C-alpha cells in the first residue's frame, strides 16, 4: 500500500528542515520516523479509517513538527569535548600568535594559515561537522589579506585592481555564507563572529588600513589584549558546542560578541570613538542577522516545496 502522501512527505520535510541535523544522522532519524508513520497509517487504515482520516489522526498523534524537530535538535546538538577542542582551536591558535608575539614571524603565520586552510577543506568535504565553521571564518583571512595588499600597489594599479577584487571577494564570501546557511544559519553567525572583532582591532591599530612603523608598535602594545579577545571567542565557541538549546546558543553569540567588542574598545584606550563602536555593533548585528535573512531568502525561493507546511501542522494541532 502506498502510504506516503504529499502531506506526510511535507510533515517529514518540515521536521528535517527544522531539526538541522548532520547528513549522516538526518538519514537515520528520518527513516525511523517515516517507518513509524507508515506503520501507524497502515494500522489506522486496517481499523477501518479512510486514508484521509488515517493521515489526520496519525499526524495528530505524532505531534507538531516544531516540537518534534526542537526535541530532535536538542538531542543531537550537544557536541563532544573533542568537538569543543577542535572548534575552539583556531581562536586559541590566533590568541597564542598574539599573546606570544609570534605574529611577527612569517614562518608561524604561514604554518597557522596552512593549518587553518587544510583543516577547513578537510572538514568541509567530510560532512561539514559543527567544528569546521569556526575554522572556516579564519580561512577567510587570506582573502582579506590579499585585499589589503592591493592597497600597496602603485596607485593606478590599486585603483584598477580593487574594484575587481572586492566584488569578487564579496561574491565568494556570499557563496560561503549560502553554503553554510544550507547546513544551518546559526553556523553562519558562528563563522562570521570574529569579523567585527578583527575589524575593531584593525581600526585601532591602523585607521588608514596601512602597515606602518607606528601601527606595528601598536600591535606589540595591544598583542596581549588581542590574544585575550581571541581567547574570549574560543570560550564562546566551547560553550556554544556544549549548549543544546538553540535560543541559548544564539543569545550566547550575541552577548559574547558584544562583550568582546566592548573589551576591544576599552583596551584600545580611546583609539576607537563612540561612532566607531556603534558602527562595530552594527556590523555585529549584521553578522547575527544576515545568515537567517539569507536562509529566508533561500527558503522563499523554494516556496513551492513548503506550501503544504501549514496544512500538516494544523492537522496535528487540531487532533492534539
Amino acid at each position, binding site marked *: 500500500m502506498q502510504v506516503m502522501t504529499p502531506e506526510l512527505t511535507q510533515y517529514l520535510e518540515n521536521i528535517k528542515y527544522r531539526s538541522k541535523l548532520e547528513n549522516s544522522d538526518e538519514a*537515520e532519524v528520518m527513516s525511523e520516523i517515516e*517507518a513509524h508513520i*507508515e506503520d*501507524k497509517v497502515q494500522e489506522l487504515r486496517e481499523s477501518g479509517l479512510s486514508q484521509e482520516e488515517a493521515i489526520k489522526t496519525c499526524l495528530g498523534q505524532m*505531534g507538531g*513538527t516544531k516540537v*518534534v524537530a526542537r526535541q530532535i535538535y536538542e*538531542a*543531537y546538538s*550537544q557536541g563532544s569535548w573533542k568537538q569543543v577542542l577542535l572548534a575552539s582551536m583556531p581562536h586559541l591558535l590566533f590568541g597564542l600568535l598574539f599573546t606570544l608575539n609570534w605574529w611577527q614571524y612569517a614562518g608561524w603565520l604561514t604554518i597557522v594559515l596552512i593549518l587553518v586552510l587544510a583543516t577547513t577543506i578537510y572538514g568541509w568535504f567530510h560532512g561539514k561537522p559543527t567544528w569546521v565553521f569556526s575554522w572556516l571564518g579564519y580561512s577567510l583571512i587570506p582573502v582579506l589579506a590579499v585585499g589589503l595588499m592591493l592597497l600597496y600597489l602603485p596607485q593606478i594599479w590599486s585603483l584598477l585592481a580593487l574594484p575587481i577584487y572586492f566584488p569578487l571577494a564579496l561574491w565568494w564570501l556570499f557563496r560561503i555564507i549560502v553554503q553554510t546557511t544550507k547546513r544551518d544559519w546559526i553556523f553562519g553567525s558562528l563563522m562570521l563572529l570574529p569579523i567585527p572583532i578583527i575589524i575593531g582591532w584593525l581600526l585601532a591599530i591602523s585607521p588608514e588600513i596601512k602597515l606602518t612603523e607606528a601601527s606595528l608598535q601598536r600591535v606589540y602594545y595591544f598583542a596581549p589584549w588581542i590574544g585575550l579577545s581571541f581567547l574570549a571567542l574560543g570560550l564562546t565557541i566551547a560553550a556554544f558546542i556544549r549548549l543544546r538549546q538553540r535560543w541559548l546558543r544564539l543569545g550566547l553569540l550575541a552577548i559574547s560578541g558584544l562583550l568582546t567588542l566592548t573589551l576591544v574598545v576599552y583596551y584600545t584606550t580611546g583609539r576607537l570613538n563612540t561612532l566607531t563602536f556603534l558602527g562595530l555593533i552594527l556590523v555585529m548585528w549584521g553578522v547575527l542577522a544576515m545568515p537567517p535573512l539569507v536562509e529566508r531568502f533561500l527558503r522563499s525561493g523554494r516556496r513551492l516545496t513548503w506550501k503544504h507546511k501549514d496544512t500538516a501542522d494544523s492537522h496535528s494541532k487540531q487532533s492534539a
Partner: protein
Amino acid sequence: MVSRRELLKGSSNSLLLCLLEQQPMYGYQIVKELEARSDGYFRFKEGTLYPALHRLEKSGLVIGKWQMLPNGRQRRYYYITAKGLAKLDQERTQWQDFLKALRLVLQPETSGM
C-alpha cells in the same frame, strides 16, 4: 496539580529503559507496548519518542541497530546496555522510594502506620 504530560516527561527515561529491559523493541512497538501495559494511561506524542530514545542512546544507555524484517522493511531496534541496566536499577529504587513516601502521605490508613 501536575499534568499527566509532566508526569510522563519526568518518568519517560525509566519507562523506556524498563520496556527495553524485557526485550529489544523498535519505536512503534514501544508506543504500543507502553500504551497496552499502562492500560492507555501513558501516551507519548509519538514523534517525541525518537528524541527521547536518541538521548538515551547518546548517553550510552541503549543502543539502536537496524534490522531487516521478513517483509523486507527495516526497523531500528533498541537494546538496553549494561550501563542502561545499572541506571534502570538506580531509577527503579528511586521511584519505589518515591511511591512509598507518596502512599504514606496520601493513604496513611492503608500504609500500615
